[in-house]
């Protein structure tokens, strides 16, 4: 009886995993298939390309090259290297600052109840309005301080927008760490900064890594603000993808190939910090 129950449980678990895998992997599979298809197959339902080509990828780097023999005319003149670098800079530095500032804020809130309950709640309030509400005032403000189409503008915005998540996520992880460890180190003669560096950060690194990855993915895939702030200099990958429109319609294959390239950094990062993510996402019960 008990064994039968165990078998049923295993079957249900695997079924669930299969469904989730299909749900996550189906769009990715389609994207891979599409990226190797020529224009004649973009609308076709076949998963395996009849005549697989790599022209989509070539056109990302040489915008004027033909795809499957036909030429497409778009507004794009430069290879994707620049948007790729822009995205890395904006999302990377935005994440770095959000994590740095967010960690210190979360530490203050978690350990010293800094700002009482109001400040921490206020940070949530800023996320209760849709981003689009900020676009107009932001444009006015940014143009007056000449932040339009600059890295500084994009990085500052990304930091500000994701700071709330950084604070709340990391506060959760910090709350999990009993303060006795820090107090013990204090009594051993360590200064508060040493305690932070040698005890708190090593103990929360799983949570820090998980928070950083989460924020990086948010920044990496951000579209709206990047679209309004960038003109020519700081176009990011999501904005770049939207530009593959020719006179005869959207270039699905090219978009798919760039989309696939765009997933590489997040997937790589996730893979690298996999070990920490497990402790991070299970809210690291280390005790």
């Amino acid at each position, binding site marked *: 009886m008990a064994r039968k129950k165990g078998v049923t449980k295993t079957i249900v678990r695997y079924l669930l995993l299969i469904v989730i895998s299909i749900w996550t992997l189906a769009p990715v599979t389609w994207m891979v298939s599409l990226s190797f298809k020529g224009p004649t197959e973009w609308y076709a339902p076949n998963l395996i390309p009849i005549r697989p080509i790599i022209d989509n990828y070539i056109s990302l780097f040489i915008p004027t090259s033909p795809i499957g023999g036909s030429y497409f005319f778009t507004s794009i003149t430069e290879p994707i290297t620049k948007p790729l670098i822009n995205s890395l800079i904006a999302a990377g530095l935005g994440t770095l600052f959000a994590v740095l500032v967010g960690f210190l804020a979360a530490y203050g809130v978690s350990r010293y109840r800094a700002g009482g309950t109001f400040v921490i709640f206020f940070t949530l309030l800023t996320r209760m309005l849709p981003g689009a509400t900020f676009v107009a005032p932001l444009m006015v403000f940014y143009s007056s301080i000449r932040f339009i189409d600059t890295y500084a503008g994009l990085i500052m915005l990304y930091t500000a927008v994701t700071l709330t998540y950084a604070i709340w996520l990391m506060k959760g992880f910090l709350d999990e760490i009993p303060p006795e460890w820090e107090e013990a180190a204090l*009594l*051993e003669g360590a200064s508060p900064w040493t305690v932070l560096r040698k005890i708190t950060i090593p103990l929360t690194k799983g949570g820090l890594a998980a928070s950083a990855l989460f924020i990086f993915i948010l920044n990496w895939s951000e579209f709206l603000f990047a679209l309004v702030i960038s003109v020519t200099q700081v176009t990011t990958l999501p904005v770049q993808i939207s530009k593959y429109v020719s006179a005869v319609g959207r270039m699905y294959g090219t978009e798919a190939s760039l989309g696939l390239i765009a997933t590489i950094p997040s997937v790589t990062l996730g893979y690298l910090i996999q070990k920490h993510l497990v402790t991070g996402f299970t809210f690291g019960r*280390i005790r």
Partner: protein
Amino acid sequence: MPKLVVKNLRKVFGTFEAVKDVNFHVEEEETLCLLGPSGCGKTTTLRIIAGLEVPTSGEVFLDGVLVNDVPPQKRQIGLVFQDYAIFPHLSVFENIAYGLRVRKIPEAQMRKKVNDTAALIEVENILDVPGKKLGLSEMQRVAIGRSIVLDPKLLLLDEPLSNIDAKARERMRAELGKLQKEIGIATVYVTHDQLEAMTLADRIAVMRDGLIEQMGTTSEIYDNPRNLFVANFIGSPSMNLMDCEPVYSEGRVVLKSGDFSLDITEFAETIKSKSKGKELVLGIRPEDVSLDVDKTDPKAMEAEVQLVEPIGAKSIYHLKISGPAILSKDRAMPEVNVGNKVWATFNKNKLHVFDKKTEEAIL
């Protein structure tokens, strides 16, 4: 000069007064135990001494120097936490070495100190084990080692045995006592377990609601509890306490509680002069109530046995003596069973009488 002096300590959290007015001192090599139920302010007092909490008012002197404004990292106090707080990401060696590394002690000297301490607390063969893999007894020893390796002026222990099951606790209490003798530093030990307090402390301070109710050696507190709270809190099984009234007639004084009565003429003067009201509480420890199958003592009272708890050479008898329920702890008597009649004698020299209103001891 006392190692530690605590003067008029008070700590308020919001509207809650955790510590009201606490005064005590600890001598060189002495162990003082703060004993009391949870919420009595003992841990808060300890944390103030360590510098982890700032007192609302009052002073803490270490070696005669006022340390109120000295941050914890500069006080040179060792603290063993209730959960031990062993750094999980560091090995036993690094846990013990932590304070020495922070102080940048030269490597060779540092290694020697850590190894000496490890030998003292008997953890030499687990030095490479990471903190998160330690058992409770090992954690306890490492926590003590970590606090003493820096030669602190004072050692604080916050309920170090409370998370351990009863059997292991007995062994670890003994280990701790042995270790304490070997180390010989002034110690403040916080616990709610009277047995721990009695076995480990030179002096005990019984606390309740942010105040010290009584302070003294184990026997002082056990034999002469100053009030009802201390009388009730110390001792296992606890003291028999019964409400009663003094009745004066024909030059004799009898304490009456329903049909139960006890002649206390010899203490009449003291009771008369010290009691404020007519309501008294009579107290007697179970071991001061002796039992006999036959009436050998003319003053013995007839009692009915309601329950017998054998605890080895002795037994605890739950009795009913014409009304009040009384516990007696006396030699094991296999012939005495539930429902039997026995004869109970109170040891008059060990009687306690309290004023019910003020709760203070009269006798």
